[in-house]
């Protein structure tokens, strides 16, 4: 997995609560057996006038001009600013795959749905939880200033605004370590295979029906 340390980028505002993973990537695109190529269909139903199909050419499709990602001022955005309970619903990892494939490295929200939150870390996306008032303020600033950028520094756990003001953020130390070093979870776990085997040996005595 690629490392994430520090980035500065345009912020796109997704100003609605409870954005679900069906909205992030609709079901027809889940038929792919690959991990890549979901970016053009991110928020498909909100982004295009017509109904998208897997493997179709998206470049010629009619856009909903008012949708945030279709506005010229938000092109090149790598930070998505969102409202509460972002990523609720289905466990589909296609949601973070689509966000990442589109170009988002960071999602900021007052709260996230649990499974989506967890899935982000596995794909080099930083889901950052900030206080609702702080998020509200960021929305106002993003709407007010075209080309509004944020710098997100994982090393120092700070978000820096265009005016130089910084906002500290909390992040799980293990998750931070994995993102900073681009670590693979499976490799880390397999380093403990003796512990897993010891657990299995013990468990087999207590619950033999689980080891047929």
């Amino acid at each position, binding site marked *: 997995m690629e490392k994430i340390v520090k980035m500065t980028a345009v912020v796109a505002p997704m*100003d*609605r*609560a*409870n954005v*679900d993973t*069906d*909205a992030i990537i*609709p*079901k*027809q695109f*889940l*038929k*792919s*057996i*690959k*991990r890549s190529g979901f970016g053009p269909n991110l928020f498909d*139903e909100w982004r295009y006038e017509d*109904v998208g199909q*897997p*493997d179709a050419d998206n470049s010629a499709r009619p856009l909903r001009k008012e949708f945030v990602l279709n506005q010229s001022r938000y092109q090149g955005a790598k930070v998505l600013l969102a*409202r*509460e*309970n972002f990523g*609720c*619903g*289905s*466990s*589909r*990892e296609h949601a*973070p795959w689509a966000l990442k494939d589109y170009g988002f490295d960071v999602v900021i929200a007052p*709260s*996230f*749905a*649990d*499974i989506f939150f*967890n*899935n982000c870390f*596995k*794909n080099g996306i930083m889901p950052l939880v900030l206080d609702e008032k702080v998020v509200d303020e960021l929305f106002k600033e993003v709407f007010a200033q075209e080309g509004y950028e944020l710098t997100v520094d994982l090393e120092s756990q700070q978000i820096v605004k265009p005016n130089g003001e910084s906002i500290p953020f909390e992040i*799980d*130390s*293990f998750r931070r370590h994995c993102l900073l070093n681009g670590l693979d*979870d*499976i490799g*880390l*776990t*397999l380093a*403990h*295979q003796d*512990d*897993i085997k010891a*657990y*299995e040996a013990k*468990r087999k005595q*207590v*619950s*033999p*029906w*689980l080891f*047929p």
Partner: protein
Amino acid sequence: MSAKTLYDKLWDAHLVRQEEDGTALIYIDRQLLHEVTSPQAFEGLRMADRKPWRTDTNLATPDHNVPTTDLTGGVASIKDPVSRIQVETLGMNAREFGITEFAMGDIRQGIVHVVGPEEGATLPGMTLVCGDSHTATHGALGALAHGVGTSEVEHVLATQCLIQKKMKNMLVKVDGQLQPGVSPKDVVLAIIGHIGTAGGNGHAIEFGGQVFRDMSIEGRMTVCNMAIEAGARVGMVAVDEKTVEYVQGRPYSPKGDEWDMAVTAWMDLKSDEGAHFDTVVEMDGSVIEPQVSWGTSPEMVLDVNGMIPDPAKEMDAVKAGGIQRALDYMGLEANTAIKDIPAEYVFIGSCTNSRIEDFRAAAAVLKGRKISDKVELALVVPGSGLVKQQAEQEGLDKIFIEAGFEWRNPGCSMCLAMNADKLPAGKHCASTSNRNFEGRQGAGGRTHLVSPEMAAAAAVAGHFVDVRDYL
């Protein structure tokens, strides 16, 4: 020793190791696999040249893409080539890695969350995961079960473990006695309406109180299934005699001495007296009414006799915007009656409500009645081949067909419309599924979540009605 919750007990029993910051390695006893969230996980194993840690803990069945019409051609009967490749890929991966698959054509094939308990592949005290958020269903048997993403599917295949931090404990206690005509689905919709779609975030929910003690195991599955719609990955109910009776004699259940040993262990799978819950929600079950969702989030739900909310009366601007957007999408007016909403499509099925008891409840309403000619399509989709067989043995299929329903083959079907069963744009659907998100049942489709008996009554009336007038 201090008093423990059911979740504490399940967590402790599966702890392989724990770091100082609380990051833990948790052992997983069972993984269920389906075609949508597993192909990239198997591909990951291949690319890293890894093998499954254990093969016998995994069980696969295709469900999301399978057609519910003609299945005689097996996988070849899937007309959409993209869907067909995904189902074929599951079969190839299962064969390559030595994993048991209930393929299309096998009577045991069905929705993973129906198949697991039905086969005894879900047992009390297990940790169980699946690349599907409705995996909480299995918690109805006193298991610790939750959905995972594809990276974690691969992680469990490769290591039999997951890296996790412990969730908080939440108790949702519903006491009293349900009114006749009020089903487990109404209970869980009322809970979601009360605590909100993010109410359980970060928590493992235990459903306790008289209502759940009185509830059947299949009813508990309906409730646990929708824990995720309240924000919680995990929903569960303590083990009791009903649990043990349900599990006994199923193909994957323990036998002989191991059965006795297992039952003794399982009877401890309940929260101790005085155990600490971080969050407690109490509700009175006797006042719960049949529920109908009106909007585009499961928390947008009301009593059947309720009126659609008015965004002008909502003080919070984000919430008011949410209500207005939902009304626009659903084509509904504020301050109108739920009962005035038409039911143009009816879908009885999904991992929430496609078990035999659901079909019995719906058939009891439909017996001797016909669906309204305003209903364009009414579908019944069993959760598995075995549910279908059982229903046919009881003659339920005939009741549905005589009423005007189509009796289909098992799968996820119109719950998320990955197969050919889609809700057309602009149509209102009385659906026993679990999500009313925009586009969930088909682009532009308008979902109203209800119980099987409420869906059946709506089919007869052609609009939403109180099922208690039909009993």
